[in-house]
């Protein structure tokens, strides 16, 4: 079973945390810090598995992680999961994110936390692998987007209009927020080999 899925950047800033086992909010934050500490001190090119930290359950659990450019993807799993299988699952997750966001980068995860959660939910449910077929996952996400669009087209328009009026005093904000317009330069992820 997958106990937790964590994404944080090279400085330990959490970008996604999903716990499938109940921990208090405080403990969750401590686990993120502990995991970052364990993972970030490891060299590149060492193995991708290590024993879990004390907070998440010690040596009964393994941390399986991958490091992509600025982000660490860490899955904490118990002994019933195949290490290499989870490693591939991380890859599928990232490839799916890449398809959904087109050259995914850290900023995408920051500004679309809800989307990232939705994508993850198509792959992992209650700590078990739900779907590994990338095409199937992307199809589901596409369908969700269509639903969203159609709702936005019919009923969402008034809401948007109201919201636009409320923000009248901020005319310099463009109508459609484009990530590229915010002047923060973030290196893109390398394309997947």
């Amino acid at each position, binding site marked *: 079973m997958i106990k937790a899925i964590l994404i944080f950047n090279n400085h330990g800033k*959490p970008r996604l945390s999903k716990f499938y086992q109940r921990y208090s909010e405080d403990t969750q934050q401590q686990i993120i810090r502990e995991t970052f500490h364990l993972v970030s001190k490891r060299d590149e090119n060492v193995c991708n598995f290590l024993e879990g930290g004390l907070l998440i359950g010690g040596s009964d659990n393994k941390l399986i992680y991958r490091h992509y450019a600025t982000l660490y993807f860490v899955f904490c799993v118990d002994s019933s999961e195949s290490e290499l299988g989870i490693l591939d699952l991380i890859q599928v997750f990232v490839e799916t994110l890449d398809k959904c966001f087109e050259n995914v980068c850290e900023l995408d995860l920051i500004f*679309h936390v809800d989307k990232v959660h*939705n994508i993850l*939910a198509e792959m992992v449910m209650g700590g078990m692998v739900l779907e590994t077929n990338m095409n199937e996952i992307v199809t589901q996400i596409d369908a969700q987007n269509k639903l969203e669009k159609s709702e936005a087209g019919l*009923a969402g328009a008034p809401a948007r209009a109201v919201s636009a009026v409320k923000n009248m005093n901020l005319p310099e904000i463009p109508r459609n*927020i484009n990530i590229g317009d915010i002047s*923060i330069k973030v290196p893109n992820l390398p394309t997947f080999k």
Partner: protein
Amino acid sequence: MPAVSKGDGMRGLAVFISDIRNCKSKEAEIKRINKELANIRSKFKGDKALDGYSKKKYVCKLLFIFLLGHDIDFGHMEAVNLLSSNRYTEKQIGYLFISVLVNSNSELIRLINNAIKNDLASRNPTFMGLALHCIANVGSREMAEAFAGEIPKILVAGDTMDSVKQSAALCLLRLYRTSPDLVPMGDWTSRVVHLLNDQHLGVVTAATSLITTLAQKNPEEFKTSVSLAVSRLSRIVTSASTDLQDYTYYFVPAPWLSVKLLRLLQCYPPPEDPAVRGRLTECLETILNKAQEPPKSKKVQHSNAKNAVLFEAISLIIHHDSEPNLLVRACNQLGQFLQHRETNLRYLALESMCTLASSEFSHEAVKTHIETVINALKTERDVSVRQRAVDLLYAMCDRSNAQQIVAEMLNYLETADYSIREEIVLKVAILAEKYAVDYTWYVDTILNLIRIAGDYVSEEVWYRVIQIVINRDDVQGYAAKTVFEALQAPACHENLVKVGGYILGEFGNLIAGDPRSSPLIQFNLLHSKFHLCSVPTRALLLSTYIKFVNLFPEIKTTIQDVLRSDSQLKNADVELQQRAVEYLRLSTIASTDILATVLEEMPPFPERESSILAKLKKKKGPGTVTDLEEIKKERSSDMNGSAEPASVNASAVSTPSPSADLLGLGAAPLTNSAPPPSSSGSLLVDVFSDSASAVAPLAPGSDDNFASPDLASSEVVSEEPADTVHDADELFHKFVCKNNGVLFENQLLQIGLKSEFRQNLGRMFIFYGNKTSTQFLNFTPTVICSDDLQPSLNLQTKPVDPTVDGGAQVQQVVNIECVSDFMEAPILNIQFSPKQEVQNIFKAKHPMDAEITKAKIIGFGSALLEEVDPNPANFVGAGIIHTKTTQIGCLLRLEPNLQAQMYRLTLRTSKEAVSQRLCELLSEQF
């Protein structure tokens, strides 16, 4: 086209996130967040109803704030409201919020459950999916109560869509994990098993996960899944890589499903049906064969997926442990991986080999890789991998390679990561003991451990080496010599001082013949470390010194000088001070014989299981060590048999042997008894004593009793407050759980007990304390066994001196043999006469003139003792009556009371009749 276009986000959310990211300091960030929280709170509380879009935006902001590590204590209600929206986007964000920020507020759970119920009934697959996700992610008991009956129906219904089936399977699995009692088994179970045949591989994957978990608890119920899983696996393994289309991952057909199926099969023994079994063997062979084929892609994903299946297949082969051919092939495959350039594969190969090492078919094959594993220990850059190498070396160790493996582990220990040192120390200690043919090697190994990693050597380890040295006289001389040499090092670890102190205190005499390790040199060596050590170690060394007094009388004065020094006798630490005082006194007053008895060499320790093993088990968690140990033990007896003469010795030390349970934990309880005297003579008291803690003082850990368990005994009785008269029954019952203490006490007499037991034999010391200031005469305690008791209990009582001086204590030894179990307690009958003092109070018959009184006392023939009595008005006299046969000492005291015109006369002689007669005679004179 990307599935998520980057421009469709919520503007307010994007602005807020950008603000946070632009904050220059943590304080600014917190300030911005607090501002936003206040804003959202006011929006939620405001009387204007928020539209769905706004609610969604604010909930997203809260999620973001939560991710940054801030507690969110509101918004739950708004999220619940979103659940009942008909719009997908709003419903989705509501569910997301609840999944991430569940609150155990029962009122909310009820509302959430209501919304879930509606969505499950909606027949809208998207809404059903959201609801099932929510149940699976929260997985609370309340949810299990509400939905555990419903979900199996959704799972097996014919018209349920595939994606919903997948979700339903995992949702049920989650509920079963959290509340197995609420998930009823029933008709649906057989239909779930048939999902293994489903067309949709996603459904099969989810169903396999569910069945694997259910089958672990209910193997009978899901037995039919074995053949279905085998045929499914067979179809996947033999399919061309394109057959499964989307479920082919980098040219590997359905790797996740294959892994899950192989896991499911590990819940069961090898299939009994030969056809199924043959088919499975074929599958496993195919998987092993494929590993040898050239890769279809250079991508790491290809090799990962392929090897994930391969490792799972090997796990199944090891689990079945029945096909020697497959086991050896598996071992060879892992052997290849040990040298693979991928670190991940080396790691997993080491891990799998650990379990393989415990299989009797492949143990020898695993051993052939020893050089590679040792090399891994030396060259791997990654501590995770090195740790697996240590585990594997430990698992593959047997008598043939123990010396090499222990040497390599010791070698590695010098540079090992701090995080794994303690574990390595424990492993080395266990292996060294378990496979010691030659105990000198064992002693060397442990001393090396202390030298290399003293800080990581726990008490269990050094206790154990002492136990073994004490129990094996063939190694004692060597141990003494070795610790003596090790102590020569200018800086040695305190643990070495402890071991050295203990061993030289016991066996220093064995090397004292050599002038280079003469008694004085030994003592000076130890004492040179003394001041650098902690209090417990110094306490131990003091005990060593008093043992030296016995071993080496020639250095007694040197040791006494040390004990007498201010730094000892006036040490601020009460334990050290007490030891110094007691040992000094003991060495001064005790005769050589007594010293030799008190400071005798420690008796052998009871043979018992090494506590180190227990510690390792505790450290590694249950299962990991135990199973291996058990299996290995069996195997070594199978394979090695009794051909190796040393195996007897080794196993005697390392395994618990209930038949030689010297601790007496399992022995039948023994019974002691002692009745106290009462005014009428003898009140009967039962004493019942258990033998449980008998040997405790001998363990090396209990430094307190290190050298002289007997020293304490004389104090035992006086520990109780002397003035109180305890209820005899109450005191008696205390002995159910302890061996020492006060059995009885009244104004005249205190009876204390101290007892120890070895198996069916026991020895009890009864201490009789005379609490009066006068002698007890004819003191005769007798222990009586009733007729019923006699066949079960043998008691031998040594007679006691019939006179007990006032304030003195006598000791009686009772040897006990428990022949068989018994109920009733023996009886202790005590008789004595305290009367040799006679007193009389009488009216003055003459004027109370001090001078005349003095003259009369002197005239009576006794000496008048002035200034003896604290009261100067009293008269005290003393004299001796000489007869031909004996001399009778006489003491007298006359206390005048002028006001009352009375005297009190007290006579005490060594013979009662004399006291009586003298009192009569003198009472008439004053």
